[in-house]
């Protein structure tokens, strides 16, 4: 999978590309709008991570250019501006998602996977990990062909872990992904703990060969046996 990272802040770009490379993505960096425009004309990418405020102009220009040359790369806007207008305009110009900075890398991975799935595997909406299969379209989970019933939050949690398999998912990242900022932070951890306990039990009871392991106080990690 080839990703174009358009981000002018070198340290930020370094962290993101480091994390993406670990997940076996091929990452190319563009630090200016001009460099990014040149690259999209020459190469094909599976997904573009696009900052809005760039030296040389707004990232939205790149979205317009993509439309003009009929390219359908997945685009996730990553912006520190967190401005509603940018979000609406970006999505109208064909961006697939909008991720305000600062974000958790786990969240970026989940969004990226979701965009890639939509772009690349249209039709096949099944996600398989060991003996566990997730039907994304119908929001159903099967273990060895047998359906297990998860509530809405449990399903969201599982999908988030699957998108971040073998990676540490921090408690706050999970809380923000599942509940947004609706819930109080202190409560959300207890809440998450109880949901994860239930999810673990369901996976274990049904003989799933994936499990959620706690990483000290930091969070959890999904591992396959």
């Amino acid at each position, binding site marked *: 999978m080839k990703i174009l990272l358009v981000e002018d*802040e070198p*340290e*930020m770009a370094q*962290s*993101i590309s*480091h*994390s993406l490379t*670990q997940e076996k993505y091929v990452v190319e960096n563009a630090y200016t709008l001009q460099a990014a425009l040149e690259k999209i004309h020459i190469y094909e990418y599976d997904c573009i991570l696009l900052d809005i405020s760039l030296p040389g102009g707004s990232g939205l220009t790149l979205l317009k250019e993509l439309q003009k040359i009929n390219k359908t790369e997945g685009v996730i806007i990553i912006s*520190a*501006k*967190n*401005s*509603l207008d940018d979000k609406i305009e970006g999505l109208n110009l064909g961006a697939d998602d909008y991720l305000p*900075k*600062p*974000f*958790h*890398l*786990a969240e970026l991975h989940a969004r990226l996977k979701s965009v890639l799935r939509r772009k690349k595997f249209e039709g096949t909406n099944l996600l398989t990990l060991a003996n566990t299969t997730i039907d994304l379209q119908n929001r159903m989970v099967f273990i060895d062909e047998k359906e297990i019933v998860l509530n809405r*939050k449990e399903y969201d949690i599982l999908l988030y872990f699957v998108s971040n398999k073998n*990676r*540490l998912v*921090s408690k*706050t990242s999970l809380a923000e992904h599942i*509940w947004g*900022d*609706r*819930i*109080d*932070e*202190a*409560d959300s951890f*207890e*809440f998450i703990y*109880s949901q994860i306990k239930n999810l673990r039990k369901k996976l274990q009871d049904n003989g799933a060969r994936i499990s959620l392991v706690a*990483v*000290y*106080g*930091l969070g959890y990690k999904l591992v396959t046996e």
Partner: protein
Amino acid sequence: MKLSSYTTTYFSLALLGIISIWSVLFYLAIIDEVYDSIDDGLENSKILILRRASQDAAVLQKTEFGESNYRIQPVSKQAALAATDQYQDTLLFMVNENDYEPVRMLKTFFHQQDHYYQLTIITSFVESDDLIEDLFYYLFWLYAVMVVCVVFINQSLLQRIWRPFYKLLDTLKEYRLDKPVPLAFQASKIDEFNDLQESVSKLLQNNLQVYQSQKQFIENASHELQTPVAISLNKLELLAEKSELTEEQAMLMESVIGNLEKLTRLNKSLLLLSKIENKQFTQEQDIQVNAVVTKLLAEFAEQAQFKEVTLHLETKGELHQRMNKDLLEMMLSNLLKNAIIHNVKNGFVTVVIHPNQIAIHNSGPAQALDPDKVFKRFYKASASSQSTGLGLSIVKAIADLYGLKLSYQYEQHHRISIDF
């Protein structure tokens, strides 16, 4: 005390003093003039009577006043020579008044053909108590009329002169730095007022500039903080993923991450506040508030269940409002979140929707919060280290933006209401 009442009081007191002193002097002057005139009259009568007595000896026989105003009585030589002319005030029975009335009396002595006589002439005199009474009566009315005039002049003339001042005062009472309106500068004939208006105008301009640069500073600062915080968080996450961490290191890292995340939340809330105050949410639409509340209550259902708090909705009417949808949702969800978090086990949260009001009642610690502080930034009733203390100020900022009235009350339970 109002300026006009103040001046009226002073004028009235001054008038009272002036008129009192003046009335005494006036009375004395009049009385003096009256004495003078009456005594002249008596003197004149005396000369006339003496002249008649020298021609007509019958006059000397008139020893009683009777119908006339003099009497003549013979006296000894010694007494006559020892005495001089004497003017006296005395009382005499008046037939018409059926009472003793004051009279002015002149006693004088003369001799005719070696006989000595005392001549007494009287003339009716003004009744000084009546005079004083009349004088007092008229002066009182003069005083009253003057006070009325002073009041009238104050009310009409002074009010008119001070009108630019009061107008400025009214504008200043309404003036708010976060909602600046241009000062209606009204040129006045009075230099002091023009000066005042100009100075106030300059003062406000300066304050406005400071206020705006302060606001801008908060927004810029929060914005500039985003990137380094984001980088730090992501780097820490990368580090945490390396599994060689000991438990102790992991704990330390968790604490650092937790604090950085708190900083992020604070920063986001501050940015949001600045954006609301800088009116950066421009898209408005007609919203059915009832539907939004229903949706939010559903979203909070799980959290409420977890906290063992029951959610209720009472619909007393349909509430519609034209505003930014995200802001409305933010305002209501902040209130709901608050009501659920600061609650007790087996407590309740009740949302009551009226056609022009929404009220959120919730059980909680049985202690009223300070209504003056509850919507202030960084006000925390409980020492929850997770809370930013900005949730309710965001609600307040949104309410202010749309001119909605936000109030807090405590009657056995907490109640926050928004009047649309």
